């Protein structure tokens, strides 16, 4: 399928001037794209994979500078004049981005934005461009394209906007489509649709696709060839199946092994029930107020019952807006809710703040974003021991410090770090700090709200392993909230699938994954199943 080489990158270097001096993001890499093939550039955050392609398209931020050669059919794109460059950009090579919500101009209609590149590069008049725009919307399977031409981006969903982006990128029949993490910001089911669409369009139109991604699942399913990047260098390249079967470089091996594996055994049937929610309901008011009429009521959690036993991990799965995080917070009584909630035989439904306070140490929460959940002005030691001030006020400063050391060691951090500040740590280290803050209180139940979603795969695996070890050591019960099926499968023994505030399906992990009954669960699984299968084999 692959033809002649149409794009070749030689000794590309990208530097950024920053307040702390120059930073080299890409350190002299070579790669090439052949006509019609699918190439994946894989790496974790900070590997320079995106900046490589940004440099090739002359889209670097104003403090960035690229040297080397990016050769497209004999022209060096790095030295091309603006007008010459614009005969390649958006025409021969086009690009779609990770952020479908913000990548379209919010002030113009879809039609206007779609027709602009067509008119500019093909010189069509408005009428012809409109016909062409319609054809493109149909091509990317947007329902009701006539009407959509007049819509503004904010009136469309993320998946639809990404389709519009693809339509714009394909407007001038390019040789190469660069897709920079095109599905990362989307829900799983939408991800699958967008990827299928890209594959189908490639069959139809024959352009080469460059996937910039951290997701090995995409690489495995779609790529012919792979470049693995780490800290600005290509560490390994090769045919996709060969590379997966026989990785050479340690980093590639580590990446491939970075998928969370293993299964969690269910607790014995007679294990005591720790936390129980019956018919839990949470409503949010939207809008309303002075002169704006009565507020709209949104049922974020709609009659949900959960039973969490000792040493059990319940995975709560769902797409964004399904109410899974709200459920987790409601069960901890951090949000007002209807229905009954019991913890260790005590009814919490009516418990107020001061009744809840002594119970807080047993019911802990770990957040998704390790950057937002640590107070930036406190030292790590202060952050970890804050709970002790509340629950063990008799401890002396020295004793608290000793407990902090203990907790840091337990989560695998150097206790010498306790006088440092959160911004001095990486994402994974910060998440460990957040876990230490929960663990120092020796809780019984921990709600883990997407604790690994903001982290790179290799770090995810470490955090999953840490959480497992802590569970085994302390007989913990977890409520594991995530949209990532692979991680959920590795962590939980029971799964609840949620959609729009309701439970769609629930059951033991292997049953749900092995034999999903509901249609929604099936799509969810189908979207992720290839990855998961691949993970099992890897």
């Amino acid at each position: 399928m692959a033809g002649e080489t149409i794009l070749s990158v030689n000794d590309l270097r990208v530097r950024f001037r920053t307040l702390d001096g120059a930073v080299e993001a890409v350190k002299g890499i070579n790669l090439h794209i052949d006509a019609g093939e699918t190439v994946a550039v894989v790496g974790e955050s900070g590997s320079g994979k995106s900046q490589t392609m940004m440099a090739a398209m002359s889209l670097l931020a104003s403090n960035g500078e690229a040297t080397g050669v990016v050769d497209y059919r004999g022209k060096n794109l790095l030295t091309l004049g603006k007008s010459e460059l614009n005969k390649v950009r958006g025409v021969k090579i086009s690009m779609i981005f990770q952020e479908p919500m913000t990548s379209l101009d919010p002030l113009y209609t879809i039609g206007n934005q779609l027709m602009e590149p067509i008119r500019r590069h093909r010189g069509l008049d408005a009428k012809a461009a409109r016909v062409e725009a319609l054809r493109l919307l149909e091509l990317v399977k947007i329902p009701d394209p006539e009407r959509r031409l007049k819509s503004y981006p904010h009136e469309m969903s993320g998946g639809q906007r990404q389709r519009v982006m693809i339509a714009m990128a394909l407007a001038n029949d390019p040789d190469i489509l660069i897709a920079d993490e095109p599905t990362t910001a989307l829900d799983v089911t939408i991800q699958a649709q967008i990827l299928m669409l890209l594959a189908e369009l490639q069959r139809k139109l024959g352009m080469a696709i460059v996937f910039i991604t951290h997701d090995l699942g995409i690489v495995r399913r779609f790529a012919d060839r792979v470049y693995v990047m780490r800290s600005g260098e290509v560490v390994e390249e090769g045919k996709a199946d060969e590379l997966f079967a026989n990785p050479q470089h340690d980093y590639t091996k580590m990446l491939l092994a970075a998928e969370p594996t293993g299964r969690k055994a269910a607790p014995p049937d007679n294990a005591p029930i720790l936390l129980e929610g019956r018919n839990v309901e949470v409503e949010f008011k939207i809008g309303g107020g002075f002169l704006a009429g009565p507020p709209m009521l949104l049922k974020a959690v709609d009659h949900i019952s959960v039973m969490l036993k000792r040493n059990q991990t319940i995975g709560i799965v769902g797409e964004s807006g399904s109410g899974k995080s709200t459920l987790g917070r409601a069960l901890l009584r951090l949000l007002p809710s209807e229905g009954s909630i019991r913890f260790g035989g005590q009814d919490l439904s009516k418990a107020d703040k001061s009744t809840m306070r002594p119970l807080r140490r047993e019911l802990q929460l770990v957040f998704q974003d390790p950057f937002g959940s640590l107070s930036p002005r406190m030292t790590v030691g202060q952050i970890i021991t804050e709970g002790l001030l509340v629950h063990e006020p008799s401890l002396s400063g020295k004793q608290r410090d000793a407990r902090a050391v203990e907790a840091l060691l337990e989560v695998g951090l150097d206790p010498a770090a306790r006088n440092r500040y959160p911004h001095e740590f990486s994402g994974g280290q910060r998440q460990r700090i957040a876990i230490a803050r929960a663990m120092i209180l020796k809780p019984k139940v921990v709600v883990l709200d997407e604790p690994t979603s903001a982290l790179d795969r290799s770090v995810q695996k470490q955090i999953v392993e840490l959480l497992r070890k802590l569970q085994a050591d302390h007989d913990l019960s977890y409520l594991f909230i995530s949209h990532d099926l692979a991680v959920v499968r590795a962590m939980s023994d029971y799964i609840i699938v949620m959609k729009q505030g309701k439970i769609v399906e629930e059951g033991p992990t292997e049953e749900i994954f092995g034999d999903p009954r509901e249609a929604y669960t099936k799509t969810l699984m189908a979207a992720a199943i290839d990855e998961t299968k691949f993970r099992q084999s890897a």
Partner: protein
Amino acid sequence: MFVYVIRRLLTAIPTLFVIVTMAFFLIRIAPGGPFNQERGLSPEIKANLEAQFGLGDPLWLQYVNYLKNLLHGNFGPSYNLPDFTVTELFAKGLPISIQLGFSALALALFVGGILGIVAALNQNKLGDYSVIALATAGSTIPTFVIAPVIQLLFGLTWKLLPIGGWGDGALINKIGPILTLSLPQIAIVARLMRGSMIESLRSNHIRTARALGLSDWSVVVKHALRGAVLPIVSYAGPAAAALLTGSIIVETIFAIPGVGRYFVDAALNRDYTLVMGTVVVIALFTIAFNLIVDILYAFFDPRVRYD
């Protein structure tokens, strides 16, 4: 949209009412009165005048009467300039203040806008630094320094402009006041424009436009500028209200017969009706321009919906 405008106009009425009430009682509980300043008026004349203007009535009755008159568009007579009604004073002075204020605002939006765009497109280069320096100077130096310095340089040293006076609205008499009024505004607009333009240029949809190979003109003007104008629009509303109702500094220094001077003079002389008139005019301008801003906003940004 229409319904929204109507609703906004209706909510403006209580706001206006609160402002009028607060201003009325504030000025009335202030010590002193219109006729017991250093006038040397005999007690009889004073009593006479006070009776004539109904100042002897209970305060609440005066308040009710004032509101009644106001509803009929009658601001009452000026106590200190007894030959004029407040309406006449405004009819004379307001056009002058509006002329100067509007010219200054237009100049500021135009020059400031262009400077801001130039700075944003040349971020961290010489052009940018010059605009920043100018903007810093413009927003730091107070008008009561700018105005005499303009007089000193253009009026006395180079003899290009008259030192002051309205000169029946001759263009040359307006240059100094307009310059003084607009310099700080130019600085603020340039700064705002630079900031919002830089942010706009950094946004993801600009990256998309560049990736599609659109021309610089389209990227900068069609996509970046339209989004960047929004903060300027919301700034221009209150600024217009303040500028069009006159500036005491400029009118005092350049001896311009606008309405900006009335406020301070009237408040100090307890010219109750004139103070109230000024408050009402300023409040009306403020409310009107805030409404205009909101309507313009909806025009510039399709995400804003009023219903």
